[in-house]
C-alpha cells in the first residue's frame, strides 16, 4: 500500500506565553513540534505497514525549510520518505489554499491508497484541511477516527469515528482519507537506527517541491488566494474565579437562581 501522512510543524502551545502588556502571543523562542495528532496518524500508518509489509509511508508537509528537520522525527519512527512543500508563494495560506497545495503534492506522488491526517492542528484548531484534501482528491473521508482496520485484501477500511455521544463504525472503500484523533494509538519511539538512516541514507532525504513541481500557478496560492482574512487575534481576558455551589440539587438550583436574579441576568 502507498500511504501519505500529512504532518504540520506547529509551535509547542504548551510552551507559548502571552505578552502581559500587548496581550499577543510571544512566538520568539517557542520550540516547534510536529503537530501531536499527526504523530498519531504516522503511528497508524506504521501499524498498517506492519500488517502489509512493503507498504510505503510518505510524510507530506507544507512549511518553511526548517520543517524538514521535524520530518526526521517521523522518519525516526520508521516512515519511508518525506516530502516538503516549500515555496515563498505558499506562505499565508488558509485551509482552503493549504488543502489545494497538499492535494496537489499528494496527486504528484500518485497511486495513493490511503491518506492519514491528524484530526486538527494545535495552532489553528480548524480540523478542516483533512476533509478538504479528500474533496479535492475525490475520495471519501471520515474525520476524527479512533479505530482503523484494513481488510486482508487491502481494499476496504473499517473505521471508528468519535462522536459527541458515542462512536460510530463505518466501512469505507479505499482509497480514502481519515483524520485521526489521539485516542487511536500510542505513538512508538523513534529509534537511533532510523534516525541515523534518516540523515545518512539518500533514499530518506527530504524531497522539496515548489509550486512548479506540484503544477500550481502562484495566483491560486498563499495569502492572496485565501478567502479567509484574519481581522484580529487576541487573548481572551481571564475569567474571574468560579464559585462552587454546594447542597442538594434543589438547594443549589435555588442558590443559582438567586444569584442570577441578583445580577439581573434573569427576572
Amino acid at each position, binding site marked *: 500500500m502507498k500511504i501519505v501522512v500529512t504532518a504540520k510543524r506547529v509551535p509547542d502551545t504548551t510552551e507559548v506565553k502571552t505578552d502581559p502588556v500587548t496581550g499577543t502571543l510571544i512566538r520568539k523562542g517557542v520550540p516547534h513540534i510536529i503537530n501531536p495528532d499527526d504523530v498519531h496518524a504516522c503511528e497508524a500508518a506504521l501499524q498498517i505497514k506492519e500488517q502489509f509489509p512493503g507498504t510505503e509511508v510518505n510524510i507530506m508537509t507544507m512549511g518553511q525549510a526548517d520543517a524538514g528537520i521535524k520530518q526526521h522525527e517521523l522518519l525516526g519512527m520508521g516512515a519511508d520518505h518525506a516530502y516538503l512543500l516549500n515555496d515563498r508563494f505558499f506562505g499565508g495560506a488558509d485551509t482552503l489554499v493549504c488543502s489545494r497545495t497538499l492535494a496537489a503534492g499528494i496527486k504528484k506522488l500518485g497511486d495513493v491508497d490511503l491518506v492519514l491526517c491528524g484530526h486538527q492542528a494545535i495552532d489553528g484548531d480548524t480540523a478542516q484541511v483533512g476533509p478538504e484534501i479528500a474533496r479535492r482528491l475525490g475520495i471519501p473521508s471520515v474525520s476524527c477516527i479512533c479505530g482503523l482496520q484494513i481488510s486482508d485484501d487491502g481494499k476496504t477500511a473499517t473505521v471508528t469515528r468519535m462522536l459527541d455521544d458515542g462512536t460510530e463504525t463505518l466501512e469505507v472503500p479505499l482509497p480514502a482519507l481519515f483524520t485521526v484523533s489521539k485516542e487511536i494509538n500510542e505513538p512508538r519511539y523513534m*529509534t*537511533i537506527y532510523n534516525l541515523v538512516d534518516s540523515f545518512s541514507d539518500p533514499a530518506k532525504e527530504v524531497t522539496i517541491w515548489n509550486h512548479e513541481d506540484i503544477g500550481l500557478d502562484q495566483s491560486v496560492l498563499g495569502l492572496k488566494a485565501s478567502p479567509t482574512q484574519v481581522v484580529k487575534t487576541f487573548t481572551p481576558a481571564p475569567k474571574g474565579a468560579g464559585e462552587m455551589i454546594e447542597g442538594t440539587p434543589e438547594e443549589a438550583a435555588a442558590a443559582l437562581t438567586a444569584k442570577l436574579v441578583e445580577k439581573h441576568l434573569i427576572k
Partner: protein
Amino acid sequence: MQLTDQQQLIQKLARQFAEKELTNDVLDETEATAVFPKEIQDKMAAVGFFGIKTPRQWGGAGADCVSYSLVMQEIAYRSAVASLYVSSPNSLSGGPLLTHGTKEQKEKYLRPVVEGKKILAFGLTEPGAGSDAGGMSTTAVDEGDYFVLNGRKTFITMAPLADWTIIFAKHDTGDKRHNITAFIVDMKAEGVSCGKPENKMGIIGCATSDIILENVKVPKDDVLGKPGHGLAIALGTLDVGRIGVASQALGVARRALDEAVAYAKERKEFGKPIAAFQGISFTIAEMATKLHAAELLVWDTCTLIDKKERCSDKAAMSKYLATEYCNWIVDRAVQIFGGYGYMKDYIVERLYRDARVFSLYEGTTEVQKIVISNSLLRSRK
C-alpha cells in the same frame, strides 16, 4: 555546545524514553527489589540504546560518541542505575569485543549483546588488584586445546546477570611485559560461579558480585585479542569508556540542580522562598557553573573521540571533573533540601548515594590524575 540535528533528535528520543519508562513507581520498585525490569531493557535494545555507536555490521545503530554521551545523560537524569545498562554493552563490555574481537567473535558475542538478547560483563578487578590491574593473580594455563583459568574477580558489575564475561588473567607467554590475556568466559561453564550480590550504597538494581573461577576450561577460540596483550585491551577499554561514567555524572548532576532550583523557589523560610537568600542562590549559581564546565569538557572529549583523535588525557579529565563536580553538586542539593534531603521520600537522597561511585569505578579520581599527569610529564622532553 553545538549539537547536530541528528544528535538533538537522539537526545530527544532518550529524554522521551526516560520520562515515559523510568517512572517514579518503576524506580522505587527497582530500589526496593534491586531488580531492574527486563521489559525496559528490551525496549532500550529496540530503540538502539545498546549499540549507539556500534557499527551497523554488528547490529548497532552506527551513531557517534556525542550521541552515546547524550543518551547516558538523559537516562541517568532519571535513573543512574538504568544508565548502567546502557553503558555496559556500548562501552565496558562491548568495547573490547568491538576493538579486538575476531569477525566470528563479534557475530557470536557482540551482536546478541547489542540486540539485548545476552548480557556481557567485564572482569578485571580482583580483591587484591584494583587500580594496579597488572598485579592480578587470576591465572590462565595453556593446556593445548584450551586454557584453564583459576582465580577470583571482584566488584564485577552485572556478573550475576551475565551470560558471558571478559576475564583478564595472568598467562605465562615467556614475555614478562606481555603476560595478561583476555578471555571470553561462558558464565555457565563448569567451574564458574558468582559470589553473593554486594549490598551497595547506591545504583541499586544492577547486581555486582565476585566471579570465582575454578579450573574453568576456555576454548582457544574464546581468547580475545593477542595472547599476552590483555592489559592493553583492558586499559584501552577504560580509556575512552570512562566518558560514559562522566556522562552519567552529568545526568545526575543536572537532575540535582533542577531539583534544587525547584525546591529553593518553593520552600519558604523567614517568610520568603529560600532562593531569595544569597546563601542559597549563590550555591545554585556555583552548581550551574560547575555543571556547565563539566558538560563542555565531556562534549569536547566526545567530539575528539568521534574524530578518532587520541584523547586519553581529555577522557581522564572529563571523568575526574564531571564525577567530582557531580558529587559536590548532589551534596549541595541535599544541603539546600535541608533535613528533607536526608529522607528517602526526596529524590536528592538517592542522587547523593548514586553519585558516590562515579569517582570510584572505572578508575578512581586519583587514577585519572595519574593518566593526566603522565600524559604531560612523560610525553614532553
